[in-house]
């Protein structure tokens, strides 16, 4: 019995006293909620992240009006995606933590150049979430998109995007595709199937004032994002875009349509339209 106690104490102190190896207090972590990937010149990769600011959120609940943004946008570059992410540590006092990352946003140029090696990192890393959504920004870079995107109804853009993706996934609308990192990679690896990612566009919240141009315009006008359509890949390279109608066709073919609105001409009265709601559709899992 006494021997057992000695062994127990030794083991117990060995396991508790030598240090708390993997302990990460919440206030030492920077929660990354969205992540953007671009390719810059000299074949460098640029990573842009949204890091949530918990204290700003807390203050917001105390006084209803908070001028402070609830997130911090920061970018860093490196020769590979992993290096770029590691370089973020030099700028962030709180260790970026990717387990809550919900979006991987890819700039159009980067997507056209190929994303396989970048996404591979997120597939293999234990921290990253395989259910993060893969989105491609049409006509812009991911950095520009992430720096400006904001939703009126949510303090964190990722929460806003999550809200939209949620009902996309539920199939409220048949137009956008739903694409997680997992399904993207699955299609990438499989023979005979090519991946399709979500197309996002920046939509100006206010129409630009006439006369304001260039940088001024970018600084003043906040943008919101719009999901819809699809980015079509061949291999890991973006080859083109599908509009809403075409995307619905893709969804019909892959059996992903759950619901949505079909607008057709009224058969017996020319010039008038009828909206049909899809209630049930054959599903493929």
């Amino acid at each position, binding site marked *: 019995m006494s021997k057992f106690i000695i062994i127990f104490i030794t083991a117990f102190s060995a*396991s*508790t006293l030598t240090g708390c190896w993997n*302990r990460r207090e*919440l206030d030492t972590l920077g929660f990354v909620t969205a992540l953007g990937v671009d390719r810059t010149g000299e074949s460098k990769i640029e990573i842009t992240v949204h890091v949530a600011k918990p204290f700003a959120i807390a203050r917001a609940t105390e006084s209803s009006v908070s001028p402070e943004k609830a997130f911090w946008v920061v970018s860093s570059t490196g020769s590979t995606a992993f290096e770029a992410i590691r370089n973020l540590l030099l700028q962030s006092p709180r260790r970026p*933590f990717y387990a809550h990352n919900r979006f991987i946003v890819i700039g159009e140029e980067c997507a056209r150049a190929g994303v396989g090696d970048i996404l591979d990192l997120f597939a293999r890393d234990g921290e990253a979430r395989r259910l993060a959504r893969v989105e491609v920004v049409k006509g812009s870079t991911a950095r520009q998109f992430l720096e400006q995107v904001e939703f009126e109804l949510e303090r964190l853009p990722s929460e806003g995007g999550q809200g939209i993706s949620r009902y996309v996934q539920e199939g409220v609308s048949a137009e956008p595709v739903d694409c997680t990192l997992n399904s993207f990679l699955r299609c990438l690896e499989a023979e005979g199937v090519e991946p399709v990612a979500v197309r996002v566009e920046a939509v100006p919240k206010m129409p630009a004032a006439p006369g304001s141009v260039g940088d001024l315009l970018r600084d003043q006008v906040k943008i919101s994002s719009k999901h819809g359509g699809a980015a079509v890949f061949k291999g890991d390279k973006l080859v083109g875009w599908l509009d809403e109608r075409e995307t619905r066709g893709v969804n019909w073919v892959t059996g992903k349509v759950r619901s949505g609105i079909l607008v057709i001409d009224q058969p017996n009265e020319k010039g008038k339209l009828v909206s049909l709601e899809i209630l049930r559709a054959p599903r493929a899992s």
Partner: protein
Amino acid sequence: MLRSLPRLLGKICSVSKPGGTKNDSVGKPLSKSCPMPKKVKVKEAFIRQAFGNSSDLVVRELHVGPGGKFTVLMVYLDGLVDKAIISENMIERISDRADRCRTPGQAYDDLKNRIIAVSDVKETGNLYDFLNYVARGYCGLVMDDVPKALVADTRGWAQRNIEEPTTEATIRGAKEGFVETLRTNTALLRRRVKHPRLRIEEYDIGTISKTSVAVAYISGLADEKVVQEVRNRLGRINVDSIQESGQVEELIEDAPFSPFPTILRTERPDKVAGALFEGRIAILTDGTPFVLIVPVTLTMFLTTPEDYFERTFIGSALRAIRYLAFFTSLTLPSLYVAVTTFHQEMLPTPLVLNIASQREGVPFPAVVEALLMEVLFEILREAGVRLPKIVGPAVSIIGALVIGEAAMRAGLVSPIMVVVVATTGIASFATPVFSLAIGARLLRFIMLLLAGSLGFFGIVAGLFGLAIHLTSLRSFGVPFMEPIAPILVSEFKDLLARVPWWAMHTRPALVGHEDLVRQGRDQKPGAPDSPSRRLADKKQI
């Protein structure tokens, strides 16, 4: 040196005593087989010397026989005897009727058979026994020239009324609890088991305290081997005193170093009676309302009589909540620490951001914060139990303010930690048996340390270690984790859910195997023409 001091003093005192000078044997300590001396003066000297100059010793001289020829010494301890019995049934009758006898022997027989109007009169020829009887509240009578003595059961002292047990309150069920007197307690049991098969065996334990310990069981239901084992374990106790059944428990339990009690204690007669009917054995100790029950299983510690008295669904639901509360009180703080410091990915983003914003500015790591709050809570709880009832509320108000408000505002702890600790604290009070709750509380700190160093793995490892320990425990031959390990499907009737009484056909298999069947299978009630009633009635005819 210190230990021998009283004996030394005793020797000096006895030598200087005037009564002891005539007979040499008076000065010596009494041996167990000390014969009764003949002369009444010598007897008196012996008695007075044995009790020293205790102020509650009353030695009264009565004179009987023609012309008060013979002296009778009446010896009792004031406070332990019922004075009414002494004066009415003994002194009055002795002085009225004891004047016809010729010889001391005749007087002695008269006293024993005719005069003393007390139900229980015993005779002893041994001075040691005589003194023991007196010490227990009997009234002793000694006479000149008779080498024997009479002891009459005149015990009667102030005792607490039968009240509702304070530590085990129920909403439904009997409101009576055990008291400190053994005889009252055995009577409470007898009143619930009106059958001669209820056996109550009494032993005196403690070389000085002479505490009566009774073993109660229903013969034919209890396993005779277990009863014998209880007798053996009680028989090997050789200590000077027993004040509470807790000491008996520690001296007979299977696993002395376990954080879990392997003997159940209760102050509810209905619980004890229920256990007796299952074939278990109760150990009653004089001087305490807490009765021990053996053999027991872990699940018994989480049941209350209410589970059986309320209707089956309610009883089962209450029990399920209690299991949940027990588990919560054991692991909730450690789960919180593990999730917030090791597995942040498990929580939804809004919640994790919310917790992070609350922890903003808290200077301690979460483990330290949790430990701090838990210790603070334990101190408050302990203080709340010990404090006089008048200041109790004041302390709880201060405690609530200190823990709930000030510590939070001072930025020492996060609000969510207060919620966690408060939930844990309340959950630990839902465990019906204090000894188990306290075990869980202690283990909670170990779990907290494990969670703080190894996260969820630490918790699982801790729980599994606990499972190993619990599975290897036995209580008087019965596996402590039965019916979970080993799995006994027949006992699931009384595990998580309690089946209705009419379906409780058998006693627990490992305890009540002497007479397994509790009742017939025809007890399911129903309206007169319902299928179950018809079936049952048909069987009866």
